[in-house]
Each structure stands twice: as C-alpha cells, then as structure tokens.
C-alpha cells in the first residue's frame, strides 16, 4: 500500500473510532463513571506498544535508549496500574441482591478492614 493510501485508511478507522467511542460511552450509567474513567485510562496504556517499538530497535544511540527506557517504564505503570485500580473499583460492585444476602454466601466475606 502506498503511503497516501495507508494514510487515508488510517484516517478512516480513526473517524470510525470516534463514533464508536461516543456510542459505547453514551449508555454508561452514572454509577459506573469512575470505573469507566479508570478503565479508559488503562486502555490508553496501549501506548506501551509504541514504547516497545522505540526501545526494541537494534541500533540506537544513548538518547534514544534513555527515552525509550523511560517510556517503557511509564507506559507499563499506566497499563498495570490502570487495570488493577479499575478492578479494585469494580470489585466493590460484585453481585449483591437487592435485599441484603444475610451472609449466606462468601460474597460479603465481612467488610474490608
């Protein structure tokens, strides 16, 4: 694919992603806004792929090495921290019947400390 064709293709999926992003989020209840913000935060950690490409190349000077290394560290913190924080938030929402389940399953397992 020529560079121009590739660019047009990339712009096409970019525009589609914009509409998809709006569409998917418009149905999220307020209750889940905080986990949603955190979840999208984890997803943009995908920039780690970019950091890996920069860091992974064979012949690089010292500056590139340092920049790439720091980028990998930052992006990994974004990925791991983002998903773990989101999971911890969502853990709070684990299934609970409208009436209190009166500790009949391990679900409640006592309040956290």
């Amino acid at each position: 694919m020529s560079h121009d064709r590739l660019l047009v293709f990339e712009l096409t999926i970019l525009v589609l992603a914009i509409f998809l992003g709006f569409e998917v989020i418009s149905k999220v209840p307020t209750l889940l806004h905080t986990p949603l913000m955190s979840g999208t935060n984890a997803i943009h950690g995908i920039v780690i792929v970019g950091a890996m490409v920069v860091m992974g190349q064979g012949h690089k000077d010292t500056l590139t090495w340092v920049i790439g290394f720091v980028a990998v560290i930052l992006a990994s913190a974004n990925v791991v921290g983002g998903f773990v924080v989101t999971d911890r938030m969502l853990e709070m929402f684990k299934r609970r019947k409208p009436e209190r389940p009166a500790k009949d399953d391990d679900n409640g397992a006592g309040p956290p400390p």
Partner: protein
Amino acid sequence: MSRTTTDLLYLVTIVTFILALAFLSRPDKARLGNWIGAAGMLLAIAVTFAQSSIVSYWEIGLGMAIGGGFGAVAARRVKMTAMPQMVALFNGVGGGAAALVSWAEFHRKAPLAGHLKVDIAIAIMLSALIGAISFAGSMVAFAKLQELIQGRPITYPGQQVVNALVAGSALAAGIAIAAGAEEQWLMWVLLACAAAFGVLFVLPIGGADMPVVISLLNAFTGLAAAATGFELENNVLIVAGMLVGASGTLLTLMMSRAMNRSIANVLFGAFGQVSPAAAATDSDGGAVRSATAEDVAVMLAYAHKVVVVPGYGLAVAQAQHDVRQLADLLEEKGVEVTYAIHPVAGRMPGHMNVLLAEANVPYPQLKEMDEANPEFARTDVVLVVGANDVVNPDARNNQGSPIYGMPILNVDQAQTVVVLKRSMSPGFAGIENPLFFNPKTVMLFGDAKDSITKLIGDVKGL
C-alpha cells in the same frame, strides 16, 4: 511474525477493548469487561515482542518490571478514597510515555533532511504536544488532590498573558516541526513549553473541579496515543487511542453538565477573578448551632425517615462502614434510611457509590439526585456527612456565587439538617455555605468517623 499476522492479532486486541468499554456500561459485566481489556493488552504486548524489528528484549523486560511493579504496588496499596489521584497519576505517565515515543521518533527520523513526511511530522508534533500537556497537567491534578499543593484556584495578575505566551511558544515550535524544520532543539522547546502549559493550565482550577480536568486529560492521553499510532503506522494505537479520546471527551461533557456548567467555565472560570470566595454570600452573621452526639442520636432514633448525604469528608474519614452500621441500627429501630447521592459528590462521579458499595450498602437505598430531591420535604433528619458544596443553597439563591446554577440536593427542605463537619472552614471550592447558618441546621463538629462512632454508641444506648 509477518506484518499481516501482527495486524490481525492487533485487531483482536481492538475488539477486546471495544468489548471492555461496552461491558463497563453494565454493573454485572463491568469487571469481566476490564479483564477482557487486560487480556487484549497482554496479547498486544506479546504480539509486539514477536515483531522482527524488536531485538532488545531484556531492556524492555526490565523497564516493564520496574514500571509494572510500581503500578501494581501503588494500585494495590492505595486506599479507595485516594483513587481519583491514582487515576490522575496513571493517566499522566501514559501521556508522558506518548510524548517520549514521539520525541524518540523525531530524534531517529528527523536528522535525515527530507525523510520526514508531513503527516508523520504533524503526528509527532501533536502527540508530543498533547502528551506533554497531559503529563504535566495530571501531575498537578495529582498534587492538588493529594494536597501536596493547595486545592484552591491559584491565580496571579497577568496569568492569561503568561499562559498565552507559553502556549504560543509550544504551538510555534510545533508548527515549525510540522512545516518541515528538523532541528532537534525545536522538540526541546515544544516539550518544555507544552509541559509548562500543562502546569499553568491546571493551577488556576479549583480542587472541586479536578474530576472534570482528569477526565479531560484522560481524553488528551488517548488522543496522544492515537497520534503516536500515525507515527508508527500502527492500527491498534490509532483505534484504542481514539476510542479513549472520544469517550473521554463525552464523559468530560457529561460531568460538566452534571454541575450545570460549561466546560469553558470549569477550565477558565477562575481567570480574572482575584478572590471568588470573598464575594460569596451575606450569611447575615447568623448563629451556628452545634449539638452533641447524644442530641443527634435522639433525633435520629425517633425519626421516621432519615436521609444520609455523603460527601468527600466521608471518604477522607473512611467512615463508610460506620455510616452503614449506624443505618442498620436505625433500621432495626424502624427508621427508614436512604442515601442521597449528588452526581459530583466526592472527587469523581460515582465516587460515593463506590465507597458505599464497599461498605455493602444495598443498591436500592442509594438515591440519585432527581429521585432524592422530592423526598426531602417528607424527611425528618438529613445527615450530611462531609458534604458541603453539593448542599449549598447559594447554588440556588445567590447569583453572585461561583457555583450559582449548579443543581444541589435541597436538604434545607427537611425538618432538621445535621451537618457532620470538622470545622467551620469553607469547602474544597472555598465557598461559604449559608446552610450552616440556617435555623434548621445543627452542626456536629469533629472527624466524621469519630462522630458516627459516637452516634452508634448513643443510639445503641437509647
């Protein structure tokens, strides 16, 4: 691995991210969605490792161990109350990573004059600019929420001029890069000015508005990641980045709408006002009534209907479990207890829901603002636990108030309002609250957790 295989596997990652976002709109599937997204991320990382151009496995692995280790420990250890600043921190480092990738790409490609295509140059410039703003801005948001620096808007004369100069310099450097200038110092100027602008742009925004700012910067990081995708001709970066960019923008708008303010008002509201707090309200010098825990315990135990209004103070004091215990105790005595949740109570939308869910408060007892407001007239006692601005009647009555027009919980329509508060100091937004001077209001001073514990003891003793 061939480029085609790589791209196909990246497509799988894209699908997992879309599913993750879709599942997040359903409380029962949200957690699964997050895991699907994490699995997709793992796949993308594995696929990238398998690319033939990647040779430095050990360095990457070491960087991942350091960054991932830090992320895991920080995310595990942080208290639920400190989640907002944690999100800000992780958002910031993502933006920083995007900016660094662009810098490295510019450094690698630019010295060969004529090598840099114009669209690549634009993508590099945008990603560096937006990423650096997001990094620096998120760090300031983190510092404000962590109370490392003061939460109030920081303003000074000539602020707009300084901001315009810094932003202008960053843009000028960016335009030069986009126009084909390939000197490395331009990138230094771009990154330094963009980072400085990120700091300057968040400083004048009050702590209470930080959720909106974090959401906006979250969208920024997404856009920076998408631009990085154009540099590296990488679909998964483009789609995932743009998904976050678009959804984050919509979420930001939804959040400022919940405060009945325009996004421009949130971001630039503090400019030009030297001291918004001074013009707050004439509280008539009315007296403040304070009560003891015993008095309040009696009021609560003999009420028919009690509504708890939680705010950030509840989060700070970690009092959610105690509040629930008190509510259970009251229910045993036949009192109807519900919780009224303002959409922006706490530091993020849904913040209170998360905390109360942690304390196993049943969903049906949580009432959203529209549902809760008509109920206050029939309510005997409202227990305001560490909330302030979301119950400030000035938002309804005082056109001069900075929060005028924000929908609030009309707690002053109840028979009695009990406010649990540490002291008479104004709230996070720095605004005086006439509710405290209302004859219906009694104050119960002290740490929210201590006060609730005392209330529990006293209600038990009745």
